[in-house]
């Protein structure tokens, strides 16, 4: 221990240059010429030893890469941390329904003229002889006007109150209902297979398919099928209905239609046996969050559950993880060095007191406590940013005990050394003795411990975030990115969500440990490499 520290305290250490490194000029000096000897400061020696350790240098490169990735990557990335992406998804939405009419339908001026009780009576009367029936004190008479077409009269009147038919009459121009008398004229013409009929002073022509024309314009049509659009503002044109019904009768399950503007749309036909109707589904492109999309050129690592770019999240996540690591270790070191320094330097009851406090903090199970506080902050809905701050303070406050012990132990042994007696003899202030002469000698061990605990802090933070108790959405951290694997579907199918984050985490922590290990070896003057 003694020679180790004196070595470090000495301002300059001399070292002979390797024989191979000699240049021609140097070889001219005589053997005991001072210029043959190159002087190196202890720091330079440490750096030299560190750089000779290939594993540690690899760790340093990984760390450098991670820093560039997290801090510069976030700036370079074209996306923001919480930028949402959308995609257009083809979703089958019900567009229209088609029913083949298998029941009598009634056309009336207004529904009260021929109430539903009367309709039921009529169906019964149809199966019996005679053409009258009674309902609710009114006697009705029906006449068969054609094949499956009946006119219904209140007995004694000449004008029919209703028509019963299997066909429907629809307007060709809109969704409005046609007047009763017009519908009746159409139905009669249809049943009688007439080419033309007169209504309201106009002559209409009619073809075999049931289309009613006013000169050149189509006004209405009669059909056995009822086709209705699901949304009331959609009008199904005659041509559309005809082609649709043709497709249904041909038993097709898909059909495409080109309207007068030349736009083609594809539809899916599905028969619903329960309702004995066909539903016409149109695949409509809908704007949805681009969740869990596979890696592509735009998103090299795909997108996550919320439709955010994974690579960008990973960069910002690294930033958060590194920030938290550094700040926590900084807090730990400050508290640890101050308390450990005081304890080691003062000794006596102060030392005893501080060491008992250290013992207490050593015993407090920190992980469970952070979990409890995390769950409480969940319940209180603490703002994610403030939460991150609390997390750092908490981790720092619970983790200083180890550093305090280390510093105290070092200072206890340093205190007894000659250079401290010398410092005391010069009469400098106590604070200067501590911070100028004692603490610098603790720094090598401190740096090693800090590097190592950076790694473990990052793991702790990631574990908490993974459990959903650390860094919260919308902030990314490597831990809460991996949190998605709690969903087994993600675990199984979307490797690109969690494996990159895990690899980053592992690489960073491993790099910190490698560097820490390398530093420990480099600081050790006994090492002969």
């Amino acid at each position, binding site marked *: 221990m003694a020679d180790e520290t004196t070595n470090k305290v000495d301002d300059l250490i001399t070292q002979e240059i390797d024989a191979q490194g000699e240049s021609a000029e140097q070889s001219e000096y005589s053997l005991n010429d001072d210029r043959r000897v190159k002087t190196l400061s202890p720091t330079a020696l440490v750096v030299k030893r560190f750089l000779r350790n290939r594993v540690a240098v690899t760790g340093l490169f990984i760390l450098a890469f991670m820093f560039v990735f997290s801090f510069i990557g976030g700036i370079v990335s074209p996306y923001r941390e919480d930028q949402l992406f959308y995609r257009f998804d083809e979703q089958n939405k019900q567009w229209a329904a088609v029913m083949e009419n298998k029941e009598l339908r009634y056309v009336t001026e207004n529904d009260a003229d021929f109430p539903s009780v009367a309709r039921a009576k009529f169906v019964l009367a149809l199966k019996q002889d005679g053409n009258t029936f009674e309902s609710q004190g009114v006697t009705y008479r029906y006449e068969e006007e054609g094949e499956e077409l009946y006119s219904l009269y209140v007995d004694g009147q000449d004008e029919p109150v209703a028509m019963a038919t299997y066909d429907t009459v629809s307007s060709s121009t809109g969704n409005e209902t046609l007047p009763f008398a017009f519908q009746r004229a159409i139905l009669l013409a249809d049943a009688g297979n007439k080419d033309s009929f007169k209504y309201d002073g106009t002559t209409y022509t009619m073809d075999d398919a049931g289309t009613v024309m006013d000169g050149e314009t189509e006004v209405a049509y009669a059909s056995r099928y009822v086709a209705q659009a699901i949304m009331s503002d959609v009008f199904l044109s005659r041509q559309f209905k005809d082609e649709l019904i043709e497709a249904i009768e041909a038993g097709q399950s898909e059909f495409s239609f080109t309207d007068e503007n030349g736009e083609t749309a594809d539809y899916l036909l599905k028969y619903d046996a329960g309702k004995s109707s066909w539903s016409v589904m149109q695949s409509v492109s809908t704007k949805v969050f681009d969740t869990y999309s596979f890696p592509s050129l735009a998103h090299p690592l795909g997108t996550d559950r919320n439709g955010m770019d994974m690579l960008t999240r990973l960069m910002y996540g690294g930033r958060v993880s590194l920030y938290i690591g550094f700040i926590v270790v900084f807090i730990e070191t400050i508290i640890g060095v101050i308390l450990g320094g005081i304890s080691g330097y003062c000794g006596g009851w102060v030392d005893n007191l501080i060491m008992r406090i250290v013992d*207490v903090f*050593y015993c407090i*199970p920190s992980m*469970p406590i952070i979990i409890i506080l995390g769950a409480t902050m969940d*319940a*209180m809905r603490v703002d994610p940013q403030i939460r991150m701050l609390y997390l750092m303070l908490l981790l720092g406050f619970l983790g200083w005990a180890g550093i305090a012990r280390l510093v105290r132990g070092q200072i206890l042994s340093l205190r007894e050394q000659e250079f401290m007696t010398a410092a005391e003899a010069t009469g400098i202030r106590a604070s200067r003795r501590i911070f100028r002469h004692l603490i610098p000698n603790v720094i090598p061990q401190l740096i090693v411990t800090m590097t190592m605990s950076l790694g473990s802090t990052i793991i702790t933070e990631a574990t908490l975030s993974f459990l959903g108790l650390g860094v919260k959405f919308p902030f990314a951290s490597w831990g809460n990115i991996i949190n998605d694997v709690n969903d087994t579907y993600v675990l199984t199918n979307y490797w690109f969500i969690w494996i990159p984050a*895990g690899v980053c*985490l*592992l690489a960073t922590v491993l790099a910190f*440990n490698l560097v820490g290990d390398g530093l420990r070896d480099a600081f050790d003057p006994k090492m002969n490499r």
Partner: protein
Amino acid sequence: MRKYILKRLLESVVILVFVAFIIYVLMRCLPTSYLEQVARAKSQQPGSKSFEEWMAQLSATYGMDKGILPGFLSWCGRAIRGDFGDSWRWTVPVTEKFADSVWISFIMGGIAFLFEIIIAIPLGIIAATKQYTKIDYTITIVALACFSLPTFFFASLLKLLFCVNLGWFDLGGLIGRNYEQLSSMGQFFDRAQHLVLPIVTLVVISIGSLMRYTRTNMLEVLNADYIRTARAKGLPESKVIYHHAFRNTLIPLVTMLGGSLPGLFAGALITETLYSIPGIGYVSYQSMVAGDIPFSMFYLTFMAILTLLGNLISDILYAVVDPRVRIA
């Protein structure tokens, strides 16, 4: 020696009381708790008392209405008699739930501990004897990688490989779907099968530090003068290493391993939660997240006791194993 142990024990008790007090204050200062949820649920039932009345009644029932110091003293008084109250989350006495769950954790921890020793110590010794060779570098890097591996990431990888892709194990839980139909032997194997992945996780995660520790201590011993003397005598290298060096390496190892024995009861909070093994770690995780104060209090105190016990055992073992150490 007896005096030393007694002194350390007393010290530990004092520390424990302080730790328990800090934990108690923390728990009492939590702004929300499971009681509030219960009171809120009860007050919403038709014809029920108001939330405040329920809260007052529940607080009185669980001794939460006293001030912090009297509350802590009465908690201490009951805790000494082994009465930790009823768990809110599990609605059974805390100690009963603890006794239910601790053994599975102990078995898991114990098996993992054995594997850890069997794997880590020989590798550490090999690394030390072959210092600065390829083998040493490989072992060192593997050890550091294990040490740096986040538990949850490693567990997820294992799950993906062995549960999803190969289908060898279930994703979580301690018993399979048809556990009840199995014979007692089958039930045993079913449980054993469900413990394989958690134990693998535990071993891999904790193997690194033991490997490093063994290597460091072995190196220290190998640099000692008596090893040079043994070599100078002309002893075969195997005898030097396994007879002279290894025995001396055992001193710090035994101290450290003895100190970690109490930790076997602590359960593996993260690993158990990841694999849904109903051990003490997972049970207490659920309690803590639910704000179950009696159980959390008990668990935290229990953890503190285990830490203190571990320190005590390793200090005593140090004196017992190493005859050079004299304890005043």
